[in-house]
């Protein structure tokens, strides 16, 4: 027997009640094939199970006879002691414990009434208290204890309930508050980022427009310069033409 056999013992017992899974059954069969001691153990468990079944049948076979014996006993039972609801109530009411409890109650009530009606001096009160203390303690101790325990339990449950509701509200409130803060932070961050992007965009547009203005001015300046140069050239050409005409006129006397 080794650890494997110990594990297999449980599986063998489960196998008897047909609650073994298919893989476990395969493992068990494989183990039984190579472990004669476990095979013997399983055989013994099976024999015991069969014997238990036989015993069950044997005991079950006597069941009818037992029932008949019981029926005879029922038939011959004396019903004069039969308890009804009324007799049960009477038994409770007339029991010595009930009588004692009623007597103690009457005694306490009489003492209480006497104490209320008679003009009691300090000494009387002390005597009455001493006389009643013992009986009150013994008769009321258990009741007081149980009522105290019940009261404490009720208070504890109510306090737990209150704490639970308060804690729930507090958690809900805190959750809402944190969610609001988170939303505000998100909105602020989003707004700042948007503003930064817009400012950057405006700056880029301004820069682009300045560059365009400069380039246009440069172009205008170039056009103006070209125009001025062309006018000068035109003037010079006219001057040259005039001088050339004058020269031609002076060279040709028949023209006059």
């Amino acid at each position, binding site marked *: 027997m080794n650890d494997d056999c110990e594990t297999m*013992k*449980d599986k063998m*017992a*489960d196998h*008897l*009640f047909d*609650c073994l899974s298919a893989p476990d059954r395969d493992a068990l069969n494989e183990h039984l094939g190579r472990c004669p001691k476990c095979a013997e*153990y399983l055989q*013994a*468990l099976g*024999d*015991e*199970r069969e*014997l*238990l*079944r*036989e*015993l*069950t049948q*044997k*005991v*079950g076979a*006597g*069941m009818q006879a*037992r*029932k008949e*014996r*019981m*029926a005879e*006993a*029922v*038939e011959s*039972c004396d*019903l004069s*002691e*039969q*308890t*009804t*609801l009324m*007799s*049960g109530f009477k038994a409770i009411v007339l029991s010595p414990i009930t009588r004692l409890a009623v007597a103690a109650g009457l005694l306490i009530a009489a003492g209480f009434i006497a104490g209320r009606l008679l003009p009691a001096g300090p000494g009387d009160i002390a005597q009455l208290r001493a006389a009643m203390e013992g009986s009150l303690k013994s008769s009321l101790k258990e009741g007081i204890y149980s009522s105290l325990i019940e009261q404490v339990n009720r208070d504890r449950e109510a306090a737990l309930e209150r704490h639970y509701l308060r804690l729930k509200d507090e958690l809900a409130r805190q959750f809402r508050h944190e969610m609001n803060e988170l939303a505000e932070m998100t909105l602020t961050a989003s707004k700042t980022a948007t503003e930064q992007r817009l400012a950057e965009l405006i700056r880029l547009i301004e820069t682009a427009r300045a560059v365009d203005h400069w380039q246009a001015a440069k172009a205008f300046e170039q056009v103006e310069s070209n125009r001025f140069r062309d006018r000068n050239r035109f003037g010079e050409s006219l001057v040259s033409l005039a001088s050339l005409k004058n020269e031609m006129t002076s060279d040709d006397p028949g023209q006059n």
Partner: protein
Amino acid sequence: MSELADENLVNASRAGDRDAYAVLAERHYEHVFVTCLGMLGNVHDAEDVTQDAMLRGLLRIGILRDSCQFGSWITRIAKNYCLSLMRRKKYGRHLAAREMTLDRKPGPHENLKRAIAKLPPVSRRILVTYYFGGESVKDVAQQMKLSRSAVYQRLRAATQQLHKLLIERGEVL
């Protein structure tokens, strides 16, 4: 009368109808007997206690509040009788004394009965309830208010304990 419901039989029994109570007692006898056998581990004591419980039920049927609950009520009475017997007589010694009077060479059924009687109460109850209650794990689980897996676990433990007891006593079957 045997086809009447428990409620009607209880009402008739309250009115003093012994036959009605006899039907009622017979109907619940087996369940009560198996419960007692599971607790006591001894057939004779289980029969005595079951009979006492049934007679007690007859005398006190007038105070049964819910007529439909006769089965659980009579089983509770029987369980109280079993507990009382186990406390009063020091049940282990009582069984040992009973064993001494048995045959010196007991058969396999006697050996098995002795081993069952020596099982721990929890194991004995589940084993007896299973075998004497028709070998239905579902019924055992319902009766003992356990899950099916718990019933299987306890049956497994009880089977192994029973085998160990039989081996220890040299009463190999």
